Structures are given as structure tokens and as C-alpha cells.
């Protein structure tokens, strides 16, 4: 079903939203109608009552034709809805999840700052208690979905002396006083996704909007990113498979030296190796999602899935362009877009180096 939807509704827009660097609101509306914006959450919160496995397959299928659409769903689901569902109070769940699951609201997540990425302890955004509110000051950068989003999960220091234990998480609504969304980044790939700065100048956040307990922000952020990695791994997997689909079609049609280039052993062996890596990525993604569904620890599996799928996507798309030759370098064919889109999967929600840190730390503990 998602494949049919992706082919008919998402693919025709992929090149256009990339070219125009435009957020595809119309696609989000269509996805909302069929329940893609809240797949792994219970029906009582407006979700589809699905699993993380189903959600990851949906992200894969969307990314197979358009990585921008894949990340819109992934950031919304994994980075905003999931922490509210997993760490929110019943009131917070009831207030935010139905509108987010229905796609009426779009969600985003703010951890990264100019001087603090994975090293979250150097956060400079601060939150100071003031009566019934917290007053937030600071800025966040590279926030996926920001210009379209209504709800943001924002990390801020509530006690600098405590290091990572001094970070707390907040649910911030776009129209809270003192909150604004800054300029949109000009990016190499996923150009239809809206990546912006968040600015908080004496932003007033009611106390009841603290997510989890005081000082739990770092834990919430790390757990959220664990889940997010399944989404990004699925996105990378989709990009890789999409590039393979295009390449298979092309090498059967393109003739050189009197025969289709698919008849050359160099083509055959390279494609065999790449498809094997794609299938291995798929199994890693499925395993991580399955473990999350079973409520088993899955951080390492998610890191492995993201690392392997992202590097596979990068290699696959570079080779897809190579197979397409000069045509592949033009915007007539989608593989150059896929190559640009693939790169981010090695960077966001923890770079490949960070994934290696997570995997080795577990090995060597």
C-alpha cells in the first residue's frame, strides 16, 4: 500500500521539491489522511496502532522514491511523537499526540547547537524557573521540519553544574512567547525538508510542559536518538534500494559495444555485491525495529543498522551515478539527487563515527 502511495503520490514530486527546495505540505496532507503520520502509536492517542517494524518499512518505501519525504516522517515520528509517548504524562500525551498523529500538527526535535552536537553536555540553551514557568534562552541549529513544525522537543540546561544531568526536556509550542524559527539552511540534499534554526529569547514555557523529570533531558535525548536511528537507517535503506531500482532499469536499456551494459560481468558483480549489502541493511533495520517492538534493548542494533545502511546508501548512490555515466550526472535522472540525499544519512542523528562509538562502547564495556 505504502509502495503504491509512494509511486503515485510521492515520486512525481521528488525532483520538483528538490529543485525548488520546497516543503511538500500537500504530500504531508495526503500522508495524514491514510495514517502515515502516527504509525507506531496506539489508537487511543490517534495513532494507527502499528509497530516500529511497520513504521520503518513505511519510511523505507517513501525514501525509495523521495528521501525528503522519508525524513519528514522519520523526524516527526521518532523525534517528536516518540518521546512524548514514551516520556510524557497522560495529560501531555492526550494534549499533543492526537493532533500530531493526525498530521494536523508537525513535530520537530531540538538538541543540536552551534557548539553542541552529540557532545550534549556543552549545551548553552538555558532554562530558568520562574513561578509556574521556565524561561528558555538560546538557539538550536539544523532542526529538521522546523519551518513547518508546530511542536518542538527542546533540550535546555536547567542546572549547568550537573553536566548532562543538568539538562531537561521541554515540549515547546510554536506560538509560545519568545519562540521563533530562524533562517532555512541551504543544503546539499534532502532539499525539500525544512532545516532551520530555533531561537528562544525569554521564551515562556509552562512548567507542565517539561517532558520527563527535571534533569532527565539527556537521557530522553539519547533514547529518542536511539529510536530515531531506526528511522534514518530505514531512510538510508530506501535511498539505496531506490538507486538500485533505477540502476537495474538503466543497465538493461543502455547499450554500449553492441550490448546492454547489464551483460558485462563488471556490472553484474558490482550490482550483486551492492544488492547483498542492501539486503543486509534491511535485516539490520528489521532487527532493530523488532527489538524495539519487543521492548528489548536495541541501541546497538539501531546504531549498527544506521551505520551500515548509511554507508551502503552512499556507496550505492555513488555507483548508481557511475553506472549512469554522463546521464547520471544530470538532473534528467534521479540518481544524482539520491547521491546528494544519501550523504546526510551518514551525518544526522549521530554521524557514522558516533555509531562506531556506540557499537564499540558496548563491546568493550
Amino acid at each position, binding site marked *: *500500500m505504502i509502495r503504491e502511495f509512494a509511486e503515485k503520490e510521492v515520486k512525481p514530486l521528488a525532483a520538483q521539491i528538490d529543485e525548488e527546495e520546497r516543503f511538500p505540505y500537500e504530500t504531508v496532507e495526503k500522508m495524514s489522511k*491514510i495514517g502515515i503520520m502516527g504509525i507506531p502509536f496506539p489508537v487511543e492517542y490517534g495513532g494507527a496502532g502499528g509497530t516500529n517494524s511497520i513504521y520503518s518499512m513505511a519510511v523505507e518505501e517513501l525514501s525509495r522514491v523521495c528521501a525528503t519525504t522519508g525524513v519528514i516522517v522519520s523526524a516527526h515520528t521518532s523525534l517528536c511523537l516518540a518521546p512524548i509517548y514514551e516520556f510524557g504524562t497522560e495529560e501531555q500525551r492526550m494534549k499533543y499526540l492526537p493532533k500530531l498523529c493526525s498530521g494536523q500538527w508537525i513535530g520537530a526535535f531540538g538538541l543540536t547547537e552551534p557548539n553542541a552536537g552529540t557532545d550534549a553536555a556543552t549545551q548553552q540553551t538555558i532554562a530558568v524557573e520562574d513561578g509556574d514557568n521556565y524561561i528558555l534562552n538560546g538557539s538550536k541549529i539544523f532542526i529538521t521540519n522546523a519551518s513547518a513544525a508546530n511542536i518542538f522537543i527542546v533540550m535546555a540546561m536547567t542546572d549547568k553544574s550537573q553536566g548532562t544531568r543538568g539538562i531537561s526536556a521541554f515540549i515547546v509550542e510554536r506560538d509560545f512567547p519568545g519562540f521563533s524559527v530562524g533562517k532555512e539552511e541551504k543544503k546539499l540534499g534532502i532539499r525539500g525538508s525544512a532545516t532551520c534554526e530555533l531561537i528562544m529569547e525569554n521564551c515562556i514555557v509552562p512548567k507542565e510542559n517539561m517532558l520527563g523529570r527535571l534533569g532527565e533531558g539527556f537521557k530522553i535525548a539519547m533514547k529518542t536518538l536511539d529510536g530515531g536511528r531506526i528511522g534514518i537507517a530505514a531512510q538510508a535503506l530506501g535511498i539505496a534500494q531506490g538507486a538500485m531500482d533505477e540502476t537495474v532499469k538503466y543497465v538493461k536499456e543502455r547499450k554500449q559495444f553492441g550490448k546492454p551494459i547489464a551483460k558485462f560481468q563488471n556490472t553484474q558483480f558490482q550490482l550483486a555485491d551492492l544488492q547483498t549489502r542492501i539486503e543486509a541493511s534491511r535485516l539490520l533495520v528489521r532487527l532493530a525495529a523488532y527489538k524495539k517492538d519487543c521492548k528489548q534493548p536495541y541501541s546497538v542494533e539501531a546504531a549498527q543498522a544506521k551505520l551500515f545502511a548509511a554507508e551502503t546508501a552512499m556507496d550505492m548512490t555513488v555507483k548508481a551515478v557511475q553506472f549512469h555515466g554522463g546521464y547520471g550526472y544530470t538532473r534528467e535522472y534521479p540518481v544524482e539527487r539520491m547521491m546528494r540525499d544519501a550523504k546526510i544519512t551518514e551525518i544526522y542523528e549521530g554521524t557514522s563515527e558516533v555509531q562506531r562509538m556506540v557499537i564499540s562502547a558496548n563491546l568493550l564495556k
Partner: protein
Amino acid sequence: MKIIVCIKQVPDTTEIKLDPVKGTMIREGVPSIMNPDDKSGLEIALQLKDKYNAHVTVITMGPAQADDILREAFAMGVDRAIHLSDRKFAGADTLATSNALAGALRMLQYDLIITGRQAIDGDTAQVGPQIAELLDLPQVTYVEDLEFDNDKTFTIKKFLEEGYQMLQVESPCLITVLSSANKARYMSVRGILEAYDHEVELWGFDNIKVDEEKLGLKGSPTRVFKSFTKGAKVMGTLYDDVSSIEAADIIVNKLKEKFIV
């Protein structure tokens, strides 16, 4: 309002390849789908459900695997699904199929029966009209749109080669719908997850009151002698700029040449 939509599972003929030697369809690996005209008919029913809270039932006759399209219909939003399946129904042509479906429909309440115009595998366009005749219902074929007026009537837009006809029809009635009528909705994620929680009612020969002689192979007067792929025709000859008298002469001469007259 109670609506019953008759749907059929068909091979996706857009994906079909023909055996170049035997000239027959290669069915292996061809996905089965809900017939496109039927799906648009179902969409009309679901739109009436959205607007007027109509109760929508789907019914299909076919082998066990036809369960798939009934689940798909549940995932799109129907309320009830009936699967007619019995060895006594096997080998049915369009008449025997219509007898079985009409038999089942007699056991149900309806204000509107919807079928597709025709199935992409048989292309006969006979089942809808035959059901209407058997149930003695007014029928409108080739429907592109339908409005519910009040308890008693529908205003229906019927497609003709050179335009449209607007008709007002009393319920209960039967319409056959074109796939061009609308773009059917997608199944929803939640709908798919819940599709297998619904019960598909299995109906056999004992559930319908139809003479056995009118069903299945026994009830099928149609005999297929041969299936073959039509060979390509030679391009016709085009006579431009001729008067009607000259044209008549040319045609008569051609007919004489071929000893037809």
C-alpha cells in the same frame, strides 16, 4: 442507506505477458488486484458513507484467495464483506455468476447496488446488467458520478460516447461504474492493521436460494472454444479528398474485388 458493492479479483492485466508460442496469458507471478471499475464503484459507496453514514457491504464470488480484496475493502472502510465460494459455483460464465450473485443479493437489504462496468480480465460488461434484470431493478450503466437526492432518488451522470446523460433514478437501483469516475482512496495504515480483525462471511450454495442447474458450469451456456491473441492487422487504405459519389464507387468496387457483392 444500505449499499452493496459487487467486486471481483482479477489478474493485473497491465503486468501480463503473453506466451509468444501458445498465445496464452502467463499467469505466473502476475499480481491479483481489485478490478479497477469495481474499485471506483466502491469509492462512490464510501463517499456516500462519508456523507450520509451509509452502510457499505462488499460481496465477491471467487476462490479462497479472493479474500484479499475483501480485506482490502475493509482497509478502505467498508462495514461488511461476504465471500461467495462453493464448488457448485465453479466454472461459471457471466450468466451463472449473475445467478449466484443475484441469489445472494436477494438475501440482503439494499437501496443501491454498485458493480464495475466490466472486469479487465473478461471485458464482458454483462454481470451488472444481468443482476439488475434478475432482481428486476432499474439500472444505469457507464456511471461517472452519483448524487443522493433524498430517500427515494439518485441523480446519476451516465457517460456516453459524445457527452453525458443526467438521469434521476428511483431506489433501489443498480449502477455500473467506470474507473474514470474517481480516484479510489488508499487503504489506511490503521485500516490494514484492523482488516484481519473483521469477519468475512463465507457463503456457499446453502446460503442462497438458487436452482443448482443455474449455477457454475451447469448453468453456463457459454462455451469457450479457443483463446488466442489477435494478430496485427494491416493498415487500411485511406482515400482523402473524394466526393461522396466517388467514395461510394470505391467501396462498391472493393466489395466486388473481394467477391462480397
